Every structure is written in C-alpha cells, then in structure tokens.
C-alpha cells in the first residue's frame, strides 16, 4: 500500500518537474538559461565519474582530461569538418570510450591511491599536450577554437519570449541529459550495476562469483570516460570556445568534488554535483574578492559536515526521518 502510493507520488512529482524544466527557460534571462545549460553539462560529467568512482570504487583525478578530449573532438569536427553539432556527441562518446578503455587497461594494475595519481598525471599533462605545435593546425594551439552557437531550427514563442539559441541549446542539452541519465539508470540498476558494486566492495568475492574483473573494470573506465567526454562536447558547444586553459587539472578535482558532494553511487546526486560545480564558485566570488578559494573551501567543509553522505545521503536521511514520523 505504502509502496504503491510512493510510486504514484514519484510519477506525479517527475511529471511536474519535467513540465517545470520545459517552461523554465522562458521565465529566465538568456544568461541564466546558459548557466542551467552548464549545470546539466557538469551533471552528465559527474555522472560519468560517479559510475567509475561511486559504483566501481576506482578513483580518477583525471576526468577533466576526458572532458577536454570530448570538447576538442566536438570543436574540431565542427570547425574543420563542418559536422553539425548534434552529430559530434556520439563521436565524442566513442573517442573517449576508446581512450578511456586504453587508459583503464594499465590502470588494472594500479589500485586505489596509485590509480588516482596516474590519472592525475593525465589531467596535468593535457593542457600542455593541447598546446603541442604538431597538432596546432587542428587545435588552434594556445588560442583555442572559437565556435558558432547552434541556431534554433524553427521559430517559437512562449510568454512573449523567443526561442533564442541559448534556449534551444537548453532543450537540446536537457534531452541529451535525460537520455544519459536513463542509460546510466538502466545500466546500473541491474546485473551490471550489482557486479560493479560487488567489485568495489569485495573484489575477491566478486571473482569467485564469476565476474570477469579485468573486463568489467576496463569497460567501466571506458564508459565513464565516454559519459564525461560527451559532457565535454556539450560544454564546448554551449560555451562556443575551447582552449587548453579551460581544462586545467582543477577541472578534474572539481568533478570529483561534484561526485562526493552529490553523493557517491547516487545517480540523482550527479545533478546536485553539477549545481555545486556551477554555482558555488560564483557564490564564493560574491562573498569575497580577496580569497574566493578559501570561501569555497569553507562552504565545502560546511556541507560535508552537515551532509556527510553528500546531498543525496542527506535527502535519504531526511526522508527516512519523515517516514518514521508519519508512520509512528
């Protein structure tokens, strides 16, 4: 009985959220719509890293590199080959999947902290590699690549607001984000998800149960890199500019912060991770010009103190307490 009413409320809630998401961009200024766009981009990137770190227990401090590869893949395809923006996303996914699998293979021998360090080396190296002279004709070197914003394919008005390029891109990103979250949900709730968690919690027991450890671990790395790379492509299209300085090692760390803040091994948590990555630096900057990084640190510590399991952990705890009260 309780289960059924829970489910009913879940569907009603989801429908309301979807309607709100569809109407929202017409109530906000273009600049805010652009920010929401980036939130979704970061959410997908965080989701990718969460598959690896949250579900499979492999640490990566180098996912900013995959984000960069995805962004550059999209930018080069659009700029040099005239490929339409939407067609660059699957390519970015595949490129990063292959690359991630290649990285994931040697990573099999590196456990825990060592893997974190190896991937961090990748994150540190990428901005410099992107400046390399030999590929400057493609990457534009230090100057990067300036892109044109995708134009909406049709005209449309709501609440007297036109469907601007930002709003069009919002709907495009929203669609892609929903698809990616559904994919992740499908992948993780069943056999594969259970296998990943088993590997995380007890690799020896997992092997004993017939899980092929090397295959699962490398493919997880690849899938995770693919998700983050696709997010990078979306981000590059939204910002309409890519350059080596956009993808410093900090980005990798921010993504990991997003995973932890949202909640390890939580799919909806990735959304809160995206919100955190996008908005908290802005809040910190508004509080203090002298030490925005310090304010950021304080906010992060405060949040971790209040919600040690991330935002989703906190939500679950609150929910459990409410349920206990209504039932009791």
């Amino acid at each position, binding site marked *: 009985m309780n289960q059924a009413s829970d489910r009913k409320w879940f569907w009603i809630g989801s429908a309301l959220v979807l309607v709100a998401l569809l109407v929202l961009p017409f109530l906000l200024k273009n600049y805010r719509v*652009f*920010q929401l766009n980036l939130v979704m981009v970061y959410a997908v990137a965080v989701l990718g890293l969460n598959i690896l770190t949250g579900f499979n227990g492999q640490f990566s401090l180098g996912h900013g590199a995959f984000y960069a590869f995805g962004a550059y893949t999209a930018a080069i395809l659009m700029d040099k080959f005239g490929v339409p923006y939407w067609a660059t996303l699957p390519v970015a996914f595949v490129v990063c999947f292959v690359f991630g699998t290649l990285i994931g293979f040697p990573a099999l021998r590196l456990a825990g902290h060592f893997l974190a360090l190896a991937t961090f080396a990748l994150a540190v190296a990428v901005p410099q590699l992107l400046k390399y002279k030999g590929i400057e004709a493609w990457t534009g070197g*230090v100057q*990067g690549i300036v892109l044109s914003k995708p134009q909406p394919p049709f005209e449309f008005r709501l609440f007297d607001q036109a469907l601007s390029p930002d709003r069009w891109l919002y709907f495009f990103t929203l669609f892609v984000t929903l698809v990616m979250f559904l994919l992740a949900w499908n992948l993780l709730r069943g056999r594969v998800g259970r296998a990943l968690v088993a590997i995380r919690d007890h690799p020896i027991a997992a092997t004993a149960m017939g899980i092929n450890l090397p295959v699962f671990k490398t493919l997880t790395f690849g899938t995770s890199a693919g998700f983050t790379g696709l997010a990078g492509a979306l981000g590059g299209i939204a910002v309409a*500019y890519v350059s080596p300085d956009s993808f410093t090692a*900090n980005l990798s760390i921010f993504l990991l912060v997003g995973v932890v803040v949202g909640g390890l091994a939580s799919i909806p948590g990735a959304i809160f991770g995206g919100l955190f990555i996008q908005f908290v*630096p802005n809040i910190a900057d508004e509080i203090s*010009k002298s030490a*925005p990084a310090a304010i950021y640190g304080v906010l992060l510590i405060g949040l971790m103190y209040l919600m040690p399991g991330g935002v989703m952990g906190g939500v679950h705890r609150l929910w459990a307490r409410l349920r206990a009260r209504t039932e009791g």
Partner: protein
Amino acid sequence: MKLTSITLALASVAALAISGTAWAQKKYDPGASDKEILIGGISPYSGPASAYGAIGKAISAYFDKVNAEGGVNGRRIKFISVDDGYNPAKTVEQARKLVEQEEVLLLFQTLGTPPNSAIHKYMNDRKVPQLFVATGATKWGDPKNFPWTMGWQPNYQSEARNYAAHILDTKPNAKIAVLYQNDDYGKDYLKGFEDGLGDKAKTMIVAKATYEVTDPTVDSQIVSLKASGADTFFNITTPKFAAQAIKKAGEIGWKPTHYLNSVSNATGTVMLPAGVENSTGIISAFYIKDPTDPQFQKGKEWDDFVAFMKKYHPTGAMNDNFNVYGYTVGQTMVEVLKKAGDNLTRENIMKQAANLDMTLPMLLPGVNIKTGPDDFFPIEREQLATFNGKSWELFGKVYGR
C-alpha cells in the same frame, strides 16, 4: 603638459560647460543613467594567475576615489569586478553575466590573452566595448574586424620595434641572435622586431632558435646561438626561461648586447636569480614609473599616488607595480568617460577611446596615450633601461610612435 588634478578639474569644468549646452540631448545605453555608470571587470582573483588579481583591486580602489570626489560628470562609477580564475570557459559565463544580467555599459581591463580571446567574438557580436584589455597581444588593435575591442599597454610588436630602433641607432652593423618561445607570443615579438629592422632584418639577424613551453631548459639553444658569432641577443622568453638563458650565456662566456622582453624584466623573479654577474648590463623597456625607483619618489605626482594608496587602498603594497598599473589604467578609463560627457552610448565610448592624446602622472616622462580611429594601440612609447645589478636604470630617449 602634465595632467595634474588642477588641469583635470579645469577640464571637467570645461566639459561640464560644454555639455551644459547639450543637456537636452542626453543619450544612454544600458548601464548608464543620470546617477550611475556601470562598468564590468573580469580578473583572476583565484586560480593559477591570481597574482594579477591585484590589478582589479587597485582599479576598484581608484574608482572609489573618483566617486568620493564627486564621480564623473556627476555620475558615480559602479565597478562590478568578478572572478574567472583565468579559465576561458568561466570568462564567457562571467562576461555574459555582466552584459546580460548586470547590463553594464562596457567591460574594462579583462585580463589575459586566453580569457579575452574567449569573449572577443561575443563582445563584438553584441557591440559592447571590451576596453583596455590587460594583455600585450597585438591582435587587440584590429579596429577593422573588431571595432569594439582595444588594448592598453604597449603591445609585443611595438615593444620589439623599439629595441630594433635602438639597435639601428647604436649598432647598425650588429649581428643579432634571437631566441623566442614557439607560440603566438614569441612570434608576435619576432614580427615586430623584423618589421622594425626593415630591409636589414635579413642580413642583421644571423641566428634564430626556438623553444617550447614544455622544454626543461634552453641551454642547447644558447650554445648554438653563441656559435653563430652574434654580438647582439634578443631574448624573447617567459620568466623561467629568461633566467635560464641569462645564466647559461654567462656560464659559457657569451657577452652580447642583451635585449630582454619586458614580459620577464622583473628584478626579483628573473634578474637576481639569474646571477647578478650575468644579468648586469641587460637592456629592457618600460612605460610606467617603477614605485621603487628613488628618482620618481618625489613631486606632486608621487604624493598623489601615495595619498591614494594610503586612503583608498591601504592593503595594497606601495612597491607593487600592479598598483601603479591599476591606478594609471583607471585614470585612462575615467578620462574616456569624461570626454563622453552626457552621450553615454557604447558607440560614443568607443569613439572617445579612439580619440585620446594625453599623458598621465605615473607614466614615464615622454610616454603618452594616443589613439585614433585606425590606431587602437594606446601606449606605444617606451624608454629603455639597463640593469645595474640592483635595479633598472633608465637611459636615452623615449622610443616609439
């Protein structure tokens, strides 16, 4: 003419008198009103380049001073300065916030070549001024293709032309070796240098060597440049490599006339670590007064600067070049706003910015700010100085247009 506060006051009275006749035709674009002028700024207050954040703070302090003294033509300046952490993706977001959300009249002193590149197209598409950007790349002075963007400090090419002019004056038969970083910055300097030497560039430059930012050292390049038999050396390197090059040249006993680009002429981070015995005698170019040079620590101009720092920017270091920079570029902005009078449209701001001819108190004597409809390079004059083992000693005439 020296621009003292008296002449400034006279000028503003004159401007008021002139604009008084045209009060009926006040014109405003977003960000300007009878009471206020909104200006946006983007600085790296966090991240790898946060040392440059000092400039944004000095500018804010200078606008506080202007406001405390009555503002510009009766309007307060509201300077909204935000952080991009030197990340171009963030710069785009912040520029859009300032233009679309805060609705500023213009962006001022956005810092760094990559961040400014990221918003170059956006600002020009939206026709919002991107004024006096804080980078030396030559591409900011392209009024034909980017009429809404303008630099401020001497660009790399004009600085290199000044060294070329000095070589032609003093050593017309020099055999020159050039070391440059293999990217836009290095090539920008080299182009200016070759343009400056003109027809003689081909015969005078006897050797060129390059390095990558990722190289560990430039030792082998220095050895091969010495082997070319050059007696003059133009050193186009960023601080770490500059120190290495100076040191290596000293170690292998190469003593050319050594020109060092201004990117790396900091005493503390380059000249002293390279070894005083190696760095003494090197020549570089300057355009603002060094606050640690005793010859500038007197007179009304210095007193005004000190009074400003004490009253409005007490946390800033008096000996920090960035504060002189922020103070002086702030004065340039205020001058443009003054000249714009009551016609505070974005178009008129660019028109006035492209119509400057003045000196400012903390610019070196003889260095001026001059622009025109086809000249978007405000400062092009510089004076050369030699390093005497402790500090830079200015000498000779002021070079540049």
